[in-house]
Each structure stands twice: as C-alpha cells, then as structure tokens.
C-alpha cells in the first residue's frame, strides 16, 4: 500500500506547531482518496512527548528519530533524513504545513527525491492514481488545479483550509529509526522569538488588523483585540515601516488567516493583503476612504476614522457582555 508521509513540526519551544494538525488532516484526506496509509515523521532532540500527542490524529505509524542535531531546525540536516525515510517507505506523497519551516524544508526534500512539488495546497481532488491539487497563484486571485507527474509528489498544506486532525483514538504505532546524519554547511546561530500574550495569528478565531491608517499607533487595535480575545494583525506597510513586528503581517507573503471575524482598521486592502484574509468568515472594514478596495470584500464596511470608531466599538461590545 502506498504511503502519505507528513512531517510533524516541533516549534523552537518544544511544542507541536498547531498547523501540523491541519496538515495531518489533509494528509488523512489525501491517504483516503489515494488509497494510501498515513504515516508521520517527527524529528526532535527528544520526540517521546510529541509522539504521544500525535497518536490520536488518525495516522497508522509515527516514525520518530532522536538526535541532538534536531534541536534547532536546519534544512540541510532535516531534508536528507525526511527524504531518506520517504525512500525507505516508498512513500508516494510527502507533505507538511506551509509554515516557514515547511516552505524551507520541503523543496529541499523534493529536490533529493527528484520530485515535483505544489506549495500551499488548499484542496485535494480525484482519487486513486488520479490525484490533483488546488493551489493559489497571483496572490490568491487565481486558483490552479495542478497535477504532479513525478513518482513521488511533495505538497505543502495551507493550514487554514483543513480542520485540525483529532479524535481518532490513540491508535498510531510509534517506530523509532536511526537517521544517517550528514555534515551541514549551515550553522544555527540564534533565534529571537517575538513573544505575545495574545493568541497566535493563524489560530485565532478573531483577528483585529491595523494598516497605514493607524500611523503606527496600535493602542486602539490592541485594546479591541484584548477585549475580543483576538490576535493582532497588520498590513505590509506597517511591518515595513517597523511599527509592528514582521510576523504580524497578514498577506500573500505574510500569514494566511481565516478567522470567524476579521476586523481591518485603516487598511486600504491591497491585493497582497486580501490574499491573506479573504477566506475569513466575516470581514469588517473601517476606513476613512470610501473607495478603499477593502470594502469590496468586507461584509460590513464603516467609512470613518478608526480612532473614533474603535473606542466606540469597544464600548458597545462591552455593554453586550
């Protein structure tokens, strides 16, 4: 039986990257459609705890490898191990979430396997040997159906398009393997984490985003976000200006979000920003400019100054609670 191999990602803090659960769900869907088995691979300094966590995700086997070299992720160290396992298992598909790590790692794995790859897939179509993938192009203005014609196919998975895997009972078998490690020309130097008490942007059910209209003053954005238990996002312009950290950027090249409620304040709505938030369930746009393109995707638009609207919005929501 052919195998779908999904890479589970460990964050620098040792916890599982939540997007991996969505990728595993996509892997399960793919395995069902292709008539294949779902396997996971987890590389870590100490994989035992996360392997336990992954047992109930619907995978048949979790392959774990432990090595001190896995503490800090490096494409050159991880790619040969993942590709080697894929070859040993004769996997037909290799995938992972489209995180920074997934996007860095998978093409290198694909290159080793001489495999074609589809980035950021949002859908899996067909069955048996006739599987195709849907993926965005031109900043999400076009969705393409693509077929990969190499014996092994590699995919990165857009997490927001698949519900996280859960509830399959702790039935997966855990198998450890001894990876052959290659010398790396790349060394890890440091990681500067941006810490936030708010929920992670890609996982939050409500996102409040600010754009150029904030003129760099995010106090009102943050206050509303905290009232709603929301994550804070931003347009590219405000990240480029250094007003907020880069990892808050929502868009084509930033993060893709799909919360229940997305509030865009002072954001004009460039194509690149819309690419990152158009799948949100309900979109609210607040902008002084009635012609701003953001109003074309907003369910509710309010033409006014965000510095007047946001405090009033907070007050009325507080009254509801």
């Amino acid at each position, binding site marked *: 039986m052919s195998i779908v191999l999904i890479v589970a990602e460990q964050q620098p803090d040792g916890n599982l*990257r939540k997007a991996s659960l969505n990728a595993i769900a996509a892997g399960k869907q793919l395995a069902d459609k292709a008539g294949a088995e779902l396997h996971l691979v987890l590389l870590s300094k100490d994989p035992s705890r996360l392997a336990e966590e992954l047992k109930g995700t619907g995978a048949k086997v979790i392959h774990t490898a432990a090595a001190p070299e896995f503490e800090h992720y*490096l*494409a050159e160290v991880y790619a040969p191990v993942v590709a080697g396992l894929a070859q040993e298992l004769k996997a037909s598909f290799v995938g992972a979430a489209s995180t*920074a790590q997934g*996007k*860095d*790692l*998978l*093409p*290198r794995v*694909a*290159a080793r396997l*001489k495999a*074609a*790859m*589809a980035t950021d897939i949002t859908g899996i179509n067909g069955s048996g040997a006739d599987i*195709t993938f849907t993926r*965005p*192009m*031109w*900043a*999400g*203005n*076009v*969705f*393409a*159906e*693509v*077929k*990969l*014609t190499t014996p092994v196919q590699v995919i990165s998975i857009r997490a927001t398009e698949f519900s996280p895997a859960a509830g399959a009972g702790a039935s997966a078998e855990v198998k450890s393997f001894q990876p052959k490690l290659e010398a790396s*020309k*790349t*060394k*890890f*130097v*440091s*990681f*500067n*984490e*941006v810490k936030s008490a708010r929920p*992670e942007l890609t996982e939050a059910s*409500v996102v409040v985003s600010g754009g150029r209209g904030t003129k760099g003053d995010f106090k009102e954005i943050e206050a509303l976000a905290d009232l*709603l238990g929301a994550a804070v996002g931003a347009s590219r312009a405000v*990240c*480029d200006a*250094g007003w907020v950290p*880069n*990892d808050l950027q929502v868009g084509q*090249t930033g993060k893709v979000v799909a919360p229940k*409620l997305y509030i865009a304040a002072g954001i004009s709505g460039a*194509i*690149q920003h819309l690419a990152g938030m*158009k799948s949100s369930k309900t979109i*609210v746009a607040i902008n002084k400019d009635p012609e701003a393109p953001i109003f074309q995707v907003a*369910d*509710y638009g*309010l033409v006014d100054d965000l510095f007047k609207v946001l405090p009033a919005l907070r007050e*009325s929501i507080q009254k*509801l609670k």
Partner: protein
Amino acid sequence: MKILVTAKRVEDPESKIKVKPDGSDIVKEGLKYKINPFDEIGVEEGLRLAAKHTGEVVVVSIGGKEVQEQLRHALAMGANRAIWVNHTGPLDQLGIAGLLQKVAEKEKPDVVLLGKQSIDDDQNQVGQYLAEFLGWGQATFASKVESLESDQEKNKVPAVVLSADKKSVQVVREVDNGLATLEVQLPAVITTDLRLNQPRYASLPGIMKAKSKPIEELTPAGLGVDVAPKIQVLKLASPPARKAGIKVPDVATLVEKLHNEAKVV
C-alpha cells in the same frame, strides 16, 4: 566576490489578474510586466554586497526574448553583466532550478541570490531546489532586524554579512514567531524576503550604461537540461466571489449586525 542574481519576468503586482473563461490561462492583454519584486530585492542586496567587498553581480533570467527587459533593468540598477537562458514554453520549478544549477556551475559564484518566491506562481521553491542540486547551504527568507526607516537602511549597508575570513555569511531570516540567524558557508544560496532592503531606482546614467552591457545567450539544450515540466497546470479558476457586503452608517448598526446577523460578537 561574485554574486549571481535571478530576475524573473512577472506581471506587475498591481495588475488585476483575470482568468480566461475556458480556464486555460490568464487574460494577458493590457498587462504590464516587471522584474519579480523579490528578485529586485535580490539584485539590490547583490549590489550592496559587491560594493562592500569588491565584486561582480551577474544577473540571469529564463524566458523568451522579452526577459531581456528585466535583465536591462537589473543592469541599469548596476549589475555588471547578464545571462539570458532563451526558452519559450512552459517551465516548472524543477526545470528552472536545473537550468540555474548549470549556470551556477559555469559561473562559480560565491552567492546565488533569488527572490523567495515569484508573485505569479507563488511557489517558493526554486532557491531550495537549487541549493540541494548544488549541494550548498541555504538561507531562505533573508530579512533584517532593523526597519526600513533605520539609519542603516539609509546608508545601504548589506544586511547579509560576510564573515571576516570571507568563507561564510550570516543571514537573518524571517520565520514563524520571530527571526532566526544562520551562518552559511560559501558558496551559498540565499532567498530574499520583503524587508531585506529597499531596491534603488535605476539612474539615467545607469539606464544609458545598461544599453552597452553584455547579455550572454544560453539555451536549455546547450546547458544539457531537460526542462519538460513535471507540474501540469490543468485548469485555472477565479476564487469564489464573496457575497457583496453592505456599508453601515455607524458603530451602533455595526455592533447590531455583528451581534444579531453574523453572530460573531
């Protein structure tokens, strides 16, 4: 120091992209073309590195005759010479990386700089494929700690920093939840993220000079690369349109709608 930089030809990122009714392609009429914005950041970074460490910047593009426009643009920014891989017809990331591998083996650069993705297919793959094909280290999504408004940006100091022994580079990378720093031995592949730098405008003397700079022509057959695509694009479609929204007159109406209609507050 020798730096090889890519300059892909893409639709202007501000263009409205529409799909043909039969889903075979996008509507190309009336579109303007540019150098891929991420590649332009790569050209800028290459120029800064070359200026600081006395080096040469060689720019490469793959496509029909029209990609010479993007090569001339990079030459006008200050690149020393250009390589045009003449190929018309479909190409995928495996083919592109295969061609770039041969060009890199011929040119033997210390660094290959590529945009982290191109804004047409958004694949984000070629740099990583290339690094593996060459057996080199990679640093993707190169960014920087300082904002674009900083003094450092104004002084145009490279954000990719060469080590004292000139055998490696330190690269700050944009990753989830923060910035990671790697040290990569040369030769290396670096892919550029948005905030690495602000590309310069081509000056008028630069544009004049670019006209006389050499463009070398190569072909996939000459390089010995089979570029038959392994990724078939079967069909293009527009994303489902969002149902038209409404404008609300005031905050009270907005909250009422969010509470009673959308039930999200």
